[in-house]
């Protein structure tokens, strides 16, 4: 009882803090003069928006790793796919809602875009594709994988192979996604300039709203009856199967939903950073997401948000102060957190708050 209460309370607390932070940033950006002490520059707005996107991504990984026990090392692929969908839309946007040919097409002498760019000229269809494409890839991949009962480390390794294969594919110029240089030089979103102050603030607010809504959906999902089944699958898959649940279907549904969330995170991320390249598919990126979740604390949802903010904030600081040492810090973080903080920072807080011993979730067996 007590843990449940804390859990919910902590989550709400985290969301409340985030909202406060965002409101403060927006106010400070819009209402203070540029030379004021309280003014917050566009850089900070973008940074926090980025962190929010990462938080959403971490949330999606926590859902499959923390609750379902599937360690996906390929969620970066869904993030990047969502990003590419948005990038395609942005790169064909011209002035006043007209469409143009993206830059890379002229480099490789293409007069027309291939058929799969069809939905890219319309914002609504893009929004649909942002969810559809990562969801579809995850569905096909999950359908085959879960049905043949590939699990544990094998699953992790083939998710990694998936994102690696996608990276190689998107690096090819003939694929029609700009090759190594990716898609960049975005100018307009829905007819508005993408670099304007208002657009930045707007994107920040939208991202916040999406994160909050996603968190609430995930939270309700976990608290629902389905959520109990999900946790049961993590702790004793065979038993759940014997009881009569269709484990594969549950896994597939959650995995696909999580991929859609990751895709949305990517779509929100791209207009803010202004570029999407095949580097986003790098296996290292996918593993970094897992570390955010591990640092924050698995199977808490809000822990993922905390972890994403914390690790990325550290990364931002590190890359300014000691640009070369970031990988040292990240590597150490991996080792130390898995060895000494299996429940993450949130688990540490929880321990000090509640005296009641927690039930140890059994590890999903290999």
């Amino acid at each position, binding site marked *: 009882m007590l843990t449940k209460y804390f859990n919910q309370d902590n989550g709400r607390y985290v969301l409340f803090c985030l909202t406060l932070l965002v409101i403060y940033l927006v106010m400070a950006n819009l209402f203070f003069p540029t030379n004021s002490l309280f003014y917050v520059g566009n850089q900070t707005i973008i940074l926090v928006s980025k962190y929010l996107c990462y938080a959403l991504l971490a949330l999606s990984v926590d859902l499959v790793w923390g609750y379902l026990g599937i360690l996906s090392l390929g969620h970066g692929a869904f993030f990047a796919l969502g990003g590419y969908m948005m990038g395609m839309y942005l790169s064909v946007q011209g002035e006043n809602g007209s469409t143009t040919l993206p830059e890379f097409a002229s480099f490789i002498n293409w007069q027309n875009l291939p058929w799969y760019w069809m939905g890219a000229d319309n914002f609504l269809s893009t929004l649909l594709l942002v969810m559809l494409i990562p969801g579809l890839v995850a569905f096909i991949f999950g359908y085959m994988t879960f049905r043949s009962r590939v699990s544990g480390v094998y699953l992790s390794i083939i998710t990694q192979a998936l994102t690696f294969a996608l990276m190689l594919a998107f690096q090819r110029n003939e694929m029609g996604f700009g090759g190594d240089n990716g898609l960049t030089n975005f100018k307009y979103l829905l007819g508005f300039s993408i670099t304007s102050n208002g657009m930045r603030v707007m994107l920040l607010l939208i991202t916040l709203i999406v994160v909050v809504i996603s968190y609430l959906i995930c939270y309700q999902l976990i608290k629902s009856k389905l959520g109990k089944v999900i946790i049961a699958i993590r702790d004793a898959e065979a038993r759940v199967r014997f009881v009569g649940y269709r484990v594969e279907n549950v896994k597939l549904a959650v995995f696909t939903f999580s991929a859609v969330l990751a895709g949305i995170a990517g779509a929100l991320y791209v207009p803010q950073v202004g570029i999407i390249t095949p580097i986003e598919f790098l296996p290292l990126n996918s593993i970094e997401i897992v570390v955010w979740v591990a640092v924050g604390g698995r199977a808490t949802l809000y822990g993922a948000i905390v972890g994403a903010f914390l690790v990325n904030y550290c990364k931002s600081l590190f890359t300014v102060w000691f640009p070369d040492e970031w990988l*040292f810090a990240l590597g150490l973080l991996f080792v130390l957190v898995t060895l000494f903080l299996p429940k993450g920072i949130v688990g540490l807080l929880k321990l000090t708050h509640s005296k009641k011993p927690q039930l140890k979730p059994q590890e999903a067996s290999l």
Partner: protein
Amino acid sequence: MRRMILICLLWMITNLATAALPDQFAQRLAKGSLTEKQQLINEMIKENDASIQPLFTALVEGNLYWLDTNSTLAIKQDNQFINWSNKQVIDLPKNQFKRITINNNIRQLVAQYQLQIKLSSNTIPTRRNAAKALFGHIQSPSQINIIVERLALEQDSEVKQRLLEALAFAKLENCQQNECLVLLTQLSNVTNPIFVQKLQQMTSIEGSQIVKEKAQSLLDKLTQKKAMYEKTEQVYFGISLGAVLVLAAIGLAITFGVMGVINMAHGELIMIGAYTTYVMQQLLPNYPGIALILSVPAAFLVCGAVGMLIEISVIRYLYGRPLETLLATFGISLLLQQLFRTLFSPLNKAIITPSWMQGSIQVNDFLSLTINRLYVIGFSLTIFIVLLLIMKKTSLGLNVRAISMNPLMARCLGVKASWVNALTFGLGSGIAGLAGVALSQITNVGPNLGQNYIIDSFMVVVFGGVGNLWGTLIAGLTLGLANKFLEPITGAMLAKIMVLISLVLFIQKRPRGLFPQRGRAVEG
């Protein structure tokens, strides 16, 4: 009488070697008219002196100069002028030297002479090479005369055969129908690309129908042969890539396959092995070959020690939690990468390939095998066999297998699990180091070396079936061959993607790989 001639010859040689070229010869060579030069060279050829050979070569290649101020001949070598008579470098401005001009007659004269020298050489390989090089390069009737003369004297059957072929090819240029057919029959075993060109030409131009048909049938045979050798070459490339994959994956087959530990830092252990080679070559800068051989045990020890350290400090506490092991070892891989980037700079390091590993074996005109790849294949197989013996025949192998099958029972029977685990992990890591030594010979050595191999290695182990060394071998070779056979059709990048995707699909069908482990140890 013979002795007399011998003494005479000896005297001549010593005499000529000291005063290789009388001064007036040099003067005339530099200043005389072209006809005079030709006469002079004829005289020189009659002397038949081995020591003037470099002079002829320089003359034909246009590297022979005359220095007026010193009245001496000089040979240009690597932008330096070397005095012909005392072999010293002359340090004078370029414009002081005057190139000795020759015409085509002289060039031919010298070329013929050189050919004669080579063909009458005492060593058979020199004669063979000379005869081989003749094919398609016979221009003048005088050359044909030389060859015919030589043919009468020649003892070695291969040289004879080559000379006959060269002659036949030269005669093919203007022949009558029947003669042509005979010549083509003589040439039916030749695989030289020049001959292929000639055949193509013969089939396309006007001429006798029978000759054309004959040429076409020869051409077909040759194309077939060529296609076959190209396939052979692909197989060779495939096996060599497969050997590299096996090498990179075999250490992982021990740590992941037998122990069940996911070691994401495996690639970095390979990298450390490659850097060990670099350091050894830095320590022994004058003996790259010896350094390479020494770095085999060195890399094994260094990487084995690093591996044991990782096992004792981190992995030991994470047994039974494979996903956590994966994360922690990934952290270690980042740490090691950054460590080497800081220690050695992020740039690639140059590794010297010793001379005995350079070059290639020319099997025939269509097929040549690079030697370093041959070494890698041999090295890979050796390591595989040694490892197989360790696992099957030694007590360490027995203990490892016991622990992997039933850890609790093994401990009850007195197997020191912690020590055996550390040793096994050290063994797997040491073999990763050996892979690094081999990879340093065929790829760039930099901090990112390991990353390029880690996903492939895992794929090989999973494909072959975890816990099965033979599976790893077969999987590695299969993947290598599949990659190389797809490459000409789809391009390198797409081939890799296709192999990856088909692997992912394969794992769906058979989640436990090609050769799954059976028995009670396998959980359902």
